[in-house]
């Protein structure tokens, strides 16, 4: 499956094989457009349907019906006539719709008439004291292990944070016989009140019944502490305990070997930003989202964005956004083609989202750390370091690079970018929009020097080049 692309030019290149990418691919390929789907995982599904064709977890009830619905979507894409390449890393996209992609140790350049970015979401950074200790990991990483390998925690384990995915993961771990000692729910009490006006839409949405059932399922087996604040991980060489303050104001400490952190997902913006797509700060979802029209068209002609990368909407919304982006591409390249209006379906899929956004808006103390808490893991820069740099003249994330090299390590800002923006905004009394974000650059994912050069691999061949 990991052969290089067959052609240098395609009508449509779709990046990412999650719900949005699979749906978009199916639609454009069926409409007769030459379609290439590039995905960096071993198989289709993205994060929500990770390993959908290959998971060792065969009992369907364990991962839930939503998970298995992905199989049908993936099958449709496979049979659509599109060229699909997995283990392909798109490391560059520019405003001329030229893509740099790595496949099987070599690189290729591809030109597209339309690009649909469906690179989905990533977990929001959760910078608490001790979050870099071995033994602390993101819930998403734990879920990847669970879906790909059927692995679940068996030592003392605490899940901390908030949001639908936290409860989903808890339920999945328990169903697979894994161990969870405690769930620490960090949802701020005030959020319940704020979310109330949106509750009706939520109660009539797709999420409500499923969400409630899942939370009940977890609560039946695990003690849940709500209204948690001042969460901290501690240990000398690795995680030994988790401490927190309860809603009643009592500080408690739990001995633990594994702490899984999660407080929501945010759009994965790196590729779109590096291409030059305009983004704006989204104050409700507390993240950067691309500026898009109703069809998902970005500020760069020919680039549309679908799925959670367009703003968090969940898997069902992603499917419809993928289809809408595809229709837009079909209409652009085949002006006589008949396309239908899918906005009612999208609207229905998005129902209840505002309630979730408001309810699970993470508290400031878990987004904007202070003191010695690490902000940038790559360069080990603390919140205090960032504030010290602000005090001597660093005005935004890009200037901060000159002082502290934040955002310049291997993660390319994925683990510190939002924190740095909000931290600097607060310190300078400005909005995150005014403070801005790192200017992101290709390669969006590191590539081998040898790949870029596409050079001969054997020593014999190399010597011949040097002497010649």
């Amino acid at each position, binding site marked *: 499956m990991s052969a290089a692309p067959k052609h240098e030019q395609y009508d449509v290149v779709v990046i990412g094989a999650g719900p949005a990418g699979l749906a978009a691919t199916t639609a454009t390929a069926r409409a007769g457009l030459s379609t290439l789907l590039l995905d960096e995982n071993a198989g289709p599904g993205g994060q929500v349907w990770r390993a959908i064709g290959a998971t060792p977890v065969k009992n369907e009830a364990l991962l839930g019906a939503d998970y298995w619905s992905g199989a049908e979507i993936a099958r449709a894409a496979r049979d659509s006539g599109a060229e699909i390449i997995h283990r392909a890393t798109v490391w560059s996209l520019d405003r001329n719709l030229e893509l740099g992609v790595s496949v099987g140790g070599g690189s290729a350049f591809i030109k597209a008439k339309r690009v649909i970015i469906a690179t989905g979401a990533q977990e929001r950074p959760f910078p608490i004291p001790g979050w870099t200790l071995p033994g602390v990991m993101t819930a998403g990483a734990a879920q990847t292990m669970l879906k790909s390998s059927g692995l679940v925690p068996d030592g003392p384990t605490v899940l901390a944070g908030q949001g639908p995915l936290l409860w989903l993961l808890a339920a999945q771990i328990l169903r697979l016989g894994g161990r969870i000692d405690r769930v620490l729910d960090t949802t701020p009490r005030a959020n319940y009140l704020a979310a109330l006006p949106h509750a009706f839409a939520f109660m009539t949405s797709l999420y409500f019944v499923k969400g409630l059932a899942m939370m009940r399922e977890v609560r039946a087996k695990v003690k849940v502490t709500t209204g948690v604040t001042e969460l901290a991980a501690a240990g000398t060489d690795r995680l030994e305990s988790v401490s927190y303050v309860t809603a009643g104001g009592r500080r408690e400490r739990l001995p633990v070997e594994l702490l899984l952190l999660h407080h929501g997902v945010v759009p994965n913006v790196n590729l779109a930003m590096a291409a030059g797509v305009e983004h704006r700060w989204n104050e409700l979802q507390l993240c950067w989202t691309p500026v898009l029209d109703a069809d998902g068209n970005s500020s760069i002609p020919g680039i549309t964005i679908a799925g959670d990368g367009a703003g968090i909407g969940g898997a069902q919304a992603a499917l419809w956004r993928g289809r809408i982006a595809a229709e837009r591409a079909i209409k652009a390249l085949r002006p006589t083609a008949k396309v239908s209006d899918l906005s009612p379906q999208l609207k229905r899929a998005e129902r209840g989202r505002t309630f979730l956004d408001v309810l699970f808006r993470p508290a400031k103390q878990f987004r904007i750390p202070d003191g010695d808490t690490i902000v940038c893991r790559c360069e080990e820069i603390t919140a205090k370091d960032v504030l010290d740099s602000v005090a001597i003249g660093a005005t935004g994330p890009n200037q901060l690079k000159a002082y502290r090299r934040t955002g310049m390590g291997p993660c390319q800002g994925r683990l510190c970018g939002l924190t740095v923006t909000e931290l600097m905004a607060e310190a300078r009394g400005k909005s995150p929009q005014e403070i801005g974000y790192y200017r992101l650059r290709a390669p969006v994912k590191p590539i081998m020097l040898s790949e870029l050069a596409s*050079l001969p691999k054997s020593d014999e061949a190399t010597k011949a080049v040097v002497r010649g």
Partner: protein
Amino acid sequence: MTINTDAIIVGGGIHGCSTALHLCLAGLKPVLIEKDYAGRHASGVNAGGVRQLARDVAEIPLSIRSMGIWESIAALVDDDCGFESHGQVLVAENAAELAACRERVADLNARGFSHEELIDSAELRRLVPAVAESCPGGIVSRRDGAAQPARTTTAFRRKAEQLGAIIREGVTASNIRKEDRLWRVDVGDDTYAAPILVNAAGAWGGRIAAGLGEPVPVTTVAPMLMITSPVPHFIDPVVILRGRKLSFKQFKNGTVLIGGGHLAAPDQDRNETVLDWRSLAISARTVFELFPVMRSATIMRAWAGIEARMQDDIPVFGPSAVHEGLFHQFGFSLHGFQLGPGAGAVMAELIVHGGTQTRIGELSIERFRNASPSATA
């Protein structure tokens, strides 16, 4: 509101910031106007080479003057700017290139310059053990080195502000004009007025000069750079190839910066560049061929900074040929970073004393007076 100052500097690159700092040291109170922020373009994102090596003869005196300042940079700006002096080496890959090197060094010696030194293959191998064995020698400039560009430009900006310069960032200098014997520049709702105007606007310098009746042949370019993941320490000096577009240096943390002048497509009005990966692939191939240790490295980031390149590849530096009180300091053509500290010092002398001991005559805008510009950016 009109604010009177001693000098107006347009452009917050290393040059504008250095001139602001040196004017403050001379007792003047300048204002520096920067449309983005100090070091946003070429001055903040260049390769950081502090190089006297392989310069045009016309700018060598300025480069030597600057080198003296670099060697005690912390005394000037309270920050060592990450400056390290491990020399810069120009590598000849064959006998013909070595012959050209020999000729170059002889020419410089005849002119009284001794900073470039011819080296044989043994000395080349001593300085750069990792270089391919087929290379017969080259040139070394031993006092050269490298610094961190954004940190350096920021340090100059900060020190200038501490010494009393007004720094206006994020605002465009507009409506540049001379009225009642004073230069006037609008910045938002404010107008700054001063007897002195310094055009240090980098890629935008050509537009300003043209707007004031001094068009020059200049283009906007964006030289590309890329940086790798850390590899084991293998090189100290900055290395430049004589015959190919490649320069590179290894930082203390093991990362390697690869440059050499392949160009991206600049979009000056958007503040953007579109990288040319096919050209970067050529650089990657050259590194792969010459330095086996680099073969396992990964490319972490690539970028390009927007700057001005003169038709004759040397800067426009010194007083205007037309207007009293106007000074130009732009067009450094991909090699202005090292010159920044010295150019600011010399510019302050020109402004305050009306002259300088440093020989800069050949850099004057006078040289374009009767030329018709081929391209004006």
